[in-house]
């Protein structure tokens, strides 16, 4: 247990020492601040760049919808790129061998990495959510919606799911590039799977869509229950598969 905790501490320190501590939070905060601004001043921005189009008067919910849209396209992409080498890099470099010939089990190795990334993502995400709500509060007459926190929560869960897929990709890959292809492929593929009639609405990819739809009113909060449960189970299964695959690998 102690070995796993010490390795987890190493992972957290590595995030700080390798500058990841600046990259993700900076990007998350940029999205947090730019989304309410872009929503509020969309018409002015369009006028400035010479586009002759006028959008309806922006509402505070547009700020959150823009946040989820930007987060989905930018932040998760950069997050996958930042962490796609989390396991495979140690294998390729050879540092894994030294750690695994100490009293560190393979399960501890994988979970330490997963938990450290989830914690880092959660902290960065929390700061960006606070930033986004605060800017919405400053720019719009209203900022609260009854499904606001559920919306942020299901989006967070979707991020955890993406991290678990990234860890699995990195565990089963022999090269950094292969790991990246799996991670980015999953990021692009799961929203497509969510479009499959009948079953798609229960898949993890649906969560990112639901986070906007329960704010815009297209869907009810209750619609999130099944995909939330499926995603939580999927995270557990994917982590189990990561450990299972890693335990079978010869290093």
């Amino acid at each position, binding site marked *: 247990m102690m070995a796993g905790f010490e390795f987890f501490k190493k992972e957290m320190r590595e995030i700080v*020492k390798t500058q990841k501590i600046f990259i993700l939070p900076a990007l998350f905060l940029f999205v947090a601040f730019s989304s309410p601004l872009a929503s509020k001043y969309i018409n002015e921005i369009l006028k400035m760049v010479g586009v002759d189009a006028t959008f309806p008067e922006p509402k505070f919910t547009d700020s959150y919808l823009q946040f989820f849209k930007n987060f989905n396209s930018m932040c998760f992409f950069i997050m996958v790129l930042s962490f796609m080498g989390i396991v495979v890099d140690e294998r390729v470099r*050879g540092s894994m*061998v030294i750690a695994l*010939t*100490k*009293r560190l089990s393979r399960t501890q190795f994988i979970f330490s990495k997963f938990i450290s990334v989830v914690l880092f993502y959660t902290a960065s995400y929390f700061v960006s959510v606070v930033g986004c709500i605060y800017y919405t509060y400053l720019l719009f007459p209203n900022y609260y919606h009854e499904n606001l926190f559920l919306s942020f929560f299901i989006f967070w869960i979707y991020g955890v799911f993406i991290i678990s897929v990234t860890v699995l990709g990195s565990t089963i890959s022999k090269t950094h590039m292969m790991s990246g292809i799996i991670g980015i492929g999953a990021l692009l593929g799961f929203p497509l799977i969510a479009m499959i009639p009948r079953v798609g609405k229960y898949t993890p990819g649906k969560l990112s869509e639901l986070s906007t739809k329960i704010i815009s009113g297209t869907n009810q909060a209750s619609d999130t229950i099944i995909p939330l449960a499926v995603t939580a189970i999927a995270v557990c299964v994917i982590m189990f598969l990561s450990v299972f695959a890693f335990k079978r690998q*010869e290093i």
Partner: protein
Amino acid sequence: MIAVETYKLTKAFGSYNAVDGLDLKVPEGEIYGFLGPNGAGKTTTIKMLLGLSKPTSGEIKICGKDVTFGSVRNRIDIGFLPDVPSFYDWMKPKEFLMFCGKIFSIESRQLNEKADNLLELVGLTGVNKKIKGFSRGMKQRLGIAQALINNPKVVFLDEPTSALDPIGRKDVMDIIEKLSGKVTVFFSTHILSDVERICDRVVIIDKGKMLIEDTIPNLRQKYSSHGIEIEAEETESYREFLTDLSNQKWIDRMEKTEEGKVKVLVNNIKDAQLNITRMLGARNVELRKFIILEPSLEDIFLKVVSK
């Protein structure tokens, strides 16, 4: 007591046996040379001994405990240095040793002292820069320190000097020599002079099979080719002496190496010593050198591997 023991250890990759029925018995406290040409199966064997690779068949025991693939049970008894060690480059040497020690749950004060002692042993005391800036030799020395952090009973060193320059090699060999008698060292290499210098016992493997295992003095005795090197002024009497010599029954082979210098392989060293000195005296040869040649480990290795 036996520190490392394998029984019919085999590792197959498809139809090719990288390790083929290897039986090893490494006595406790010895520096054990694990020799073989490139591709002989040394690293594959070490990985199985460490539980990093799954044997196709066979058994492994370290300090009496069974080794199973992936298990952490034996880790407290072992230390390992790979051929090209890789660390977390952003750490400093002491920080890395502290990290390794904490994985073994070593108490902080004891660990701090241990890390300082090990840094002193490997000559890295006071080095406070990130591992990123280390030379290969420094990394290898830090690698030895991390392998010893848990006071292991057996240390596996996989070709620790193969990537080093002569100075780095000497530094690493000096450190390994200091471990003699304190810990069992399982030392894999293909650099024979390193083995000759520090190992108590060697095993030579090729194509995954054990060819021979013994102490170096015993190997020398077994594989001694009884050579004598003679060097003298290149005169008429010396040439006559060489002609006489080539007709002796106890001569196996004669080889002129340089001007005035011959290497003679004999089948009876005692007869040869007595007769050659007598013959040299009889021909009034002005002798410069007369050396009884000890077979080098390289000679033995080549003989065993090419059999």
